[in-house]
Structure formats: C-alpha cells, structure tokens
C-alpha cells in the first residue's frame, strides 16, 4: 500500500540504480561502466551526463530510504496482523478451557451438589487438604481465610470465595467437612465426593495425594501437594501460592490479578 503511493519517477530511477548496486565500490573500470549506464537515454537523465555523482547520490539515498521505509512498514503491518491472529487463537483456547477444563461435580458441606460453573463470576481461592491433617492444612487454611478477610475489608474489591477440597474422601464425609470448615470462615465451602470424583478434580488441578499406612486406630496421614490456587471469574487457573508465601503477599497478588482481569467469556 505504501509502495504504490510512491511517485513513478522513483521507480524509474530504481531500475536504473539497481545494476549500480550490483557493481559495487567505485574503481576505474566500474566508474566507466557507471558513466555508460547513465548515458543511456531516459527522460530524467538528459541533464546529467557530465555530473553523475552529486544529485545521483542524494537521489539514491532518498530512494533507498523510501524503499526501506516501505519494507519496514509492510513488515510491521504483517507482524501486527500475526500477533492479532495469535491473540484470537489464545482467547479461543482460554474460552474452551474455561468451560471444559477443571470441571468437577462435588458435594459441599451442606450436602448440595456443586460444579465449577457454580463459581463462575467469582474469584476463588482453592486449597486441597484433609481434616485429619496435623498442622499444614490448618495453617494454610488459616492463611487463606486471612487473605479473604483482608480483601473483604476493601469495599471496592469483589468478594473471594474460599474453597476447601478434600483429598481423603474415605473419611471426609459431608458431616466431617461441616465440622471442619466452621472453625475457619463462615463462607469457607468444603467439598467432598466419591473416590472417583476426588481423583478427577485432583487430576484437573494437578494435585498429588497419597494416603499413608493405617495404624492400629485405623488412622493415617495423606501426603499431598500443598498449594493455594487462585481461579479467575472465568473459572481459569490464574496463579498458585506455595507454603512460603505470606498472607500479605498473597493478598497483594490477588489484588493485582483483580485489577488486570479481562474476561474471555461473554
């Protein structure tokens, strides 16, 4: 488009100058050839036979610059278009993931069935653990609800839904979950289900868990990966926070994600 806008005179000169570029640096022989080329008839050449260097150089530079600008413009335009295409593909992939991935069908601690779509439109902080956990799960849940409380204190921010999913479906019944979550936060929702359902949701969120050996009391500890997950209102995994992160650090991070959020779902 930019190329077509250039005057035809420049094109004419370009065709004449191209062989010059191929001839290389000035030397006796090439000088001679150059003079010969310039002497071939053309409408713009008649006044220039004796002085090829002066105006020739400036014109050459101008044309090169225009060609360069044209090529550069075309390249930038193509690159921007490619980037737009990539963004569209990514948005589409995210949209599909938001709907399909990480879906679950579990029972909350009041006995109601919950699936991922129920939480669409809300920010979610999610933790996987079990009620018989000695210290890590209570600590992490305490940290999680502290983050929720800190964010609740800011009226301009949307409320965050805290979720606790068990990795010990054998013992963590609806009643056990209800007893457990009440100690942390009134809005903390405990989710449990069958062994298959828990296995499925753990797979979706890449959570490792492994029940240890049972002792005489039939008690056991479940080894599991420890992380607090942040899900966006689109239901997409947005960030995760390890045991090393403090409540303040997590609160800051959630606030930043909230500020930067753009929904891919309409």
């Amino acid at each position, binding site marked *: 488009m930019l190329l077509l806008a250039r005057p035809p005179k420049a094109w004419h000169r370009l065709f004449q100058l191209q062989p010059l570029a191929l001839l290389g640096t000035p030397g006796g022989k090439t000088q001679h050839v150059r003079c010969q080329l310039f002497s071939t008839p053309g409408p713009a050449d008649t006044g220039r036979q004796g002085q090829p260097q002066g105006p020739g150089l400036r014109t050459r530079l101008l044309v090169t610059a225009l060609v360069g600008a044209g090529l550069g413009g075309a390249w930038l335009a193509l690159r921007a278009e490619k980037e737009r295409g990539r963004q569209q593909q990514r948005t589409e992939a995210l949209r599909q993931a938001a709907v399909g991935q990480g879906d679950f069908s579990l029972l909350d601690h009041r006995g109601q069935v919950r699936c991922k779509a129920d939480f669409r439109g809300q920010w979610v902080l999610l933790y996987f653990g079990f*009620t018989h956990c000695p210290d890590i799960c*209570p600590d992490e849940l305490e940290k999680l609800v502290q983050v929720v409380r800190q964010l609740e204190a800011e009226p301009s921010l949307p409320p965050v839904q805290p979720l606790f999913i068990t990795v010990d479906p054998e013992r963590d019944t609806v009643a056990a979950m209800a007893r457990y979550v009440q100690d942390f936060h009134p809005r903390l929702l405990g989710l449990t289900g069958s062994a298959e359902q828990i296995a499925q949701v753990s797979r979706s969120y890449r959570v490792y868990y492994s029940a240890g050996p049972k002792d005489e009391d039939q008690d056991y*500890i479940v080894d599991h990966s420890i992380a607090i997950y942040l899900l966006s209102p689109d239901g997409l995994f947005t960030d995760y926070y390890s045991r090393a992160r403090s409540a303040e650090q997590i609160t800051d991070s959630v606030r930043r994600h909230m500020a930067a959020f753009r929904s891919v779902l309409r």
Partner: protein
Amino acid sequence: MAAPSMKERQACWGARDEYWKCLDENTEDASKCKKLRSSFESSCPQQWIKYFDNRRDYLKFKEKFEAGDFQPSKMTAKS
C-alpha cells in the same frame, strides 16, 4: 474416629510445643522431659505424634546442615 476439632488441635500443638521447649533446654535429652512427653502423647492422635517426631528430627537435621556441620564425603568430592 472423628478428626480433632480446632480446640483439640490447639491443645495438641500446645503440648507439642511444651515438649519441644523442654528438649531444647535439655539438649534433646528425652529422659528429662518424660512428663511433658506423656502429656503430649495424651493430647494428640498417635499418627500425629509420629508425624511431629519425624518433623522434629528433620528440623534438627536442617539446623545442623545449615550450620555447616556436614562436610561432603571424600568420595563425592573426587567423583
């Protein structure tokens, strides 16, 4: 067996902390802290006692390691 409630958890952690404080003061001499040990054992589920004992071992090891008490063996230095 129901999971410990928050109160029970806190009682267990308190007993554990008392016991560990005693061990700290007595350079890991468990015989000096028998009373606190039995109090600890009665406040916590058996699985948790095992877990906390392992945790104590690990924390002590970590302390030693970070203090540089462990030297790489001659074998590994050469290989």
